[in-house]
């Protein structure tokens, strides 16, 4: 009974792996990429929401536009163009975030502009996404960005609940607060536990062995 999920996964592995960016091959939890905003800025659910939404918009459209950059250009020029495209996308995205969250955007500080140099745009565009057909690539980038969104909002919610005793700014009357959760220390610890949970799940799915070739930081 306990192996039902594993058997199902192994039977339909090819189809399920198309969506692996959501959890099993998650940008943050498995690959250890783009962890700075999660660890430092996502200490409230709203901060997580702002950064998560911005990340989806900048990265999804950034990689999509990058797929039109001619491959004949030298690698260094291509990478510069990818980041410049992300910077151009940053302008409407930050404007949109200022409209949606006028009192909160300043709280994420430098971590919003820093999304333009995230690893999915700078390195994974070349090493992963552009090796796929465009539709598959769009699905893969979408899963990776949504995976990041889910992680950053979850981390933000957990840190806000335990560190500040509130949820989206509403007091929860918690018996105690662990202030250290609001510091980068809390981000490292919460992310460490989530990464361990995903690693355990991956070991279960793969029947006791982790996939070393795919592994990000093992």
């Amino acid at each position, binding site marked *: 009974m306990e192996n039902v999920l594993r058997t199902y996964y192994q039977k339909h592995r090819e189809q399920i792996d198309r969506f692996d960016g959501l959890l099993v091959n998650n940008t943050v939890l*498995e*690959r*250890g*990429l*783009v*962890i*700075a905003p999660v*660890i*430092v800025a996502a200490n409230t659910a709203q901060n997580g929401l702002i950064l998560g939404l911005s990340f989806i918009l900048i990265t999804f459209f950034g990689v999509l536009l990058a797929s039109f950059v001619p491959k004949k250009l030298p*690698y*260094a020029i291509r*990478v*510069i163009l990818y*980041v*410049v495209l992300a*910077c*151009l996308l*940053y*302008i409407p995205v*930050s*404007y949109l975030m200022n409209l949606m969250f006028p009192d909160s955007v300043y709280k994420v*500080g*430098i971590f919003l*502009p*820093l999304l*333009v*140099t*995230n*690893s999915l745009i*700078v*390195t994974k565009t070349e090493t992963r996404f552009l090796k796929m057909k465009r539709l598959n690539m769009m699905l893969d980038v979408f899963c990776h960005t949504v995976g990041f969104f889910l992680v950053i909002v979850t981390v933000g919610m957990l840190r806000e609940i335990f560190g500040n005793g509130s949820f989206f700014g509403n007091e929860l009357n918690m018996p105690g607060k662990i*202030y*250290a959760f609001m*510091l*980068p*220390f*809390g*981000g*490292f*610890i919460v*992310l*460490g*536990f989530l*990464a*361990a*949970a995903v*690693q*355990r799940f991956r*070991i279960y799915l793969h029947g006791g062995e*982790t996939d070393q070739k795919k*592994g*990000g*930081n*093992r």
Partner: protein
Amino acid sequence: MTWLEFTTTFFGKMFLYALIAMFTENTIFSRALGASTSLWIIRKKYRIFAFGMIMTIITTLSAVAVYYLLPYVQKLDSSSYILPLVYIGVIAVVYIVMLFVTHRLPLKNKDMMLMFIHRCAFNCAVLGALLLSTEYKLELPGFIGFGIGTGFGFTLATYLTYIAYGRLNSKAVPKAFRGFPITLFYIGILSLAIYGMIGHELPV
């Protein structure tokens, strides 16, 4: 102000900001900037000090250029929206110059150095150092010192993680926590230790 006074003040400020960037504002322990790159270097067993040196050069050169460009950018309407674009432009120029110079130099490990430059230029630690220097409204010695300190701080933090990485990957650690998860715990504990060491206290 005499030349001697100017020099001592300039280098004194630069040294002070380098120390701040290395310890109190450490790129990895305080802001987790470049943490994934740091883990990548350790995992691949690349040369930490060579990578740190390249990061220091790129950050410092970009910081000087940004300092002189900043007054012109800040005159523009909505300058905060185009700031990343300007900074990326500066980093891109430094990146191309570094690649060009490295190609010309008779280096032993040229391929490795070129790979380090590719990996380092658009790292969030570099852009983060420039954005932080701007946010703190630093003067020229501050920009230079912060750039140098960021590179040195990155190297120090990477080395401290490297020392423990073998143990963090040993079979003594449960499979679920081995590698990346326990490394996050380790960096987190170090970050809290440094937070306390520089004089902060947690509210009771």
